[in-house]
């Protein structure tokens, strides 16, 4: 009944590591690319060592003057996304549901993955943290955040379909992003539905549960992690950094 162990755990682990490796390599290439810039306005470009970016970012974040404190930016502008709220409450609602849903599910999956690995290694965990028990405990929050994510995605799709401005300005780059999100969410619902025979299982036989779950996990890992540095998902990392570097922005 537990989430992962029905699908081959080895396969899962291998895929997870491949995804992490792809993510790290992609991040490395991006940071290398950014490091081709200079360390300050009007200075010569640097040699491209990844230290350059990290140093420049830290220096800029720490520089005094114009702008708000680090913590204000972190809480109000990154976590609560105040800048979007100021502009459009609807877009803020869409963004915050996707953000919160995504982050929560990501953290839940990490938790599950961690307890399963710990169990596998043979370390005994307190009862509440046994994979099966934890899975049951998390089932409700899992559902809640999945629906939150789904609401955000539906708003995003509807905006793109029905608001002409948004539709006309959508390019493949945006569609791949939204498409990926949609597939992850829907496969999550379906694999869960098959497993517990609920609505989202669409009556698919139980025996398909493990491969369905595997499919969901693989594509989540690929989209949620591996694909980030190579795509529009990169803004999930770069935008918060930009906000920090510019002390909350103008």
């Amino acid at each position, binding site marked *: 009944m537990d989430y992962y162990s029905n699908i081959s755990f080895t396969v899962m682990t291998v895929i997870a590591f491949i995804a992490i490796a792809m993510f790290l390599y992609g991040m490395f290439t991006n940071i290398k690319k950014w490091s081709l810039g200079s360390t300050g306005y009007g200075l010569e470009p640097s040699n491209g060592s990844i230290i350059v970016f990290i140093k420049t970012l830290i220096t800029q974040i720490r520089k005094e003057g114009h702008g708000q404190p680090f913590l204000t930016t972190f809480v109000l502008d990154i976590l609560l996304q105040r800048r979007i709220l100021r502009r459009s409450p609807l877009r803020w609602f869409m963004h915050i549901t996707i953000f919160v849903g995504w982050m929560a599910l990501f953290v839940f999956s990490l938790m599950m993955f961690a307890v399963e690995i710990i169990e596998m290694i043979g370390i005994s965990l307190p009862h509440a943290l046994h994979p099966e028990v934890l899975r049951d405990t998390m089932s409700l929050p899992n559902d809640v955040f999945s629906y939150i994510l789904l609401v955000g995605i539906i708003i995003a799709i509807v905006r793109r379909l029905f608001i002409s401005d*948004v539709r006309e300005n959508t390019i493949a780059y945006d569609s791949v992003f939204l498409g990926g999100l949609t597939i992850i969410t829907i496969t999550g619902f379906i694999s869960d539905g098959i497993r517990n025979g609920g609505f989202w299982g669409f009556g698919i036989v139980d025996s398909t549960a493990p491969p369905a779950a595997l499919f969901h996990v693989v594509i989540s890992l690929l989209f949620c992690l591996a694909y980030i540095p190579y795509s529009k998902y990169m803004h999930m990392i770069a935008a918060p950094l930009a906000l920090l570097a510019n002390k909350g922005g103008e």
Partner: protein
Amino acid sequence: MAKRTPSINTNNLTAVQLMEIDACTRCGECLNWCPTYDAQDQPAGLAPRDKIKRWKSYMDRSYGLRAKLFGPRPVSDNEMQEFSDDLYYCTTCGVCGTVCEAGINTVELWESIRANLVKRGNGPYGKQNMFPKLIKEYHNPYMKDQKDRLLWIPNGIEIAEKADVVYFAGCTAGFNQQVLGVCTARVMNKLEVPFMLLGEEEWCCSSALVRTGQPHIDDVPRLAAIHNVEALEATGASTVMFACAGCFRVATIDWPRLIGRKPKFNVVHIADLLADYIKQGKIKWEGSLNNQTITYHDPCHLGRHCGVYETPRIVLDNLPGAKFVEMDRIREEQRCCGAGGGVKAGIPDLAVGISSTRIKDAQDVNADILASTCPFCRRNLGDGRDSVYGITGTDFDLRDNPENEMQVEDMIVLVAELMGLSTKIKSQMEEE
């Protein structure tokens, strides 16, 4: 086959700016605010978002993963030139940065990419390429002799030998819209604030060079910054006062960066000083606006770039007989007049197109007077007013305003008038 080299380099961009290019979420908010995108009927190429996307694609084609594995993919000369031209269709007003949900510092980004494009041979745009030569040779963009820096001063104005304040008049007030220099000086005299002038030692602040991506050419802005800061410090004054938003921005933001330290004096805008005097009840008014409606256009270089929003409003709201109203799009969300970023010199039609929209904002609130605190806004809003009202010809400074048309004026001229001071410049006085 020879190995292809990347079509672009990263000259003038900082590592953090290169990251900011990847931070754009493509939310499209900037499209709702950009004045040039709006004035040109919203062509995709002028959208700030699109400019970021294109530079990102050039970066990726040159340095991305694929470029690493299979070699860089070229960007054609045409594509590059088109991008460069689009990037100069921008007043560097910065509203795109204000509304950007990713907090991208767009103005710095545009200026840095412009400098990169200038080095590459694509920028600047149109007549803007004259700036470095003129400013280097004449120390002002109007090809005037430095010896004539103080020619604008009419009889009766007192310039102190030694004082705590230096008035940095700037090239435009000194040579081109002298009424601003004259009114500033008269108001200061009347308020008994002694001030010095740098005269020949005042060099162009070089704002136009920084804004148009030409700061590196012969190092003019840096040398000018060093010269001006040293000359100002040598006076021993503790305060340097500006009545021009462009110079004020340079002194506040660019000088410290260009010389690598904070100057030893305070930088203030005349609006700050006047607001202070008003609060202390030290201004004696001698006229009235007779219940005319007045509204205020925030110059982007004073407001959004430097955060001075309140003091000009205090001044205007306190003008006797003034009915002060606010327009749509003010303060940090202000709509640019269209003159900045080299647009007035490089693409004058675009500048007037944008300012006409601003005039309509003022018409919407039935303003009789549209006031600002920047010579460039004053000039360009005046041109916009003329275009909207179908007025042609004659020098802006010398033309009378027919009664039924909106008056576009600088705050300092209104203040001088209402303090009972003459707003006549030297040539007008001599004619009489």
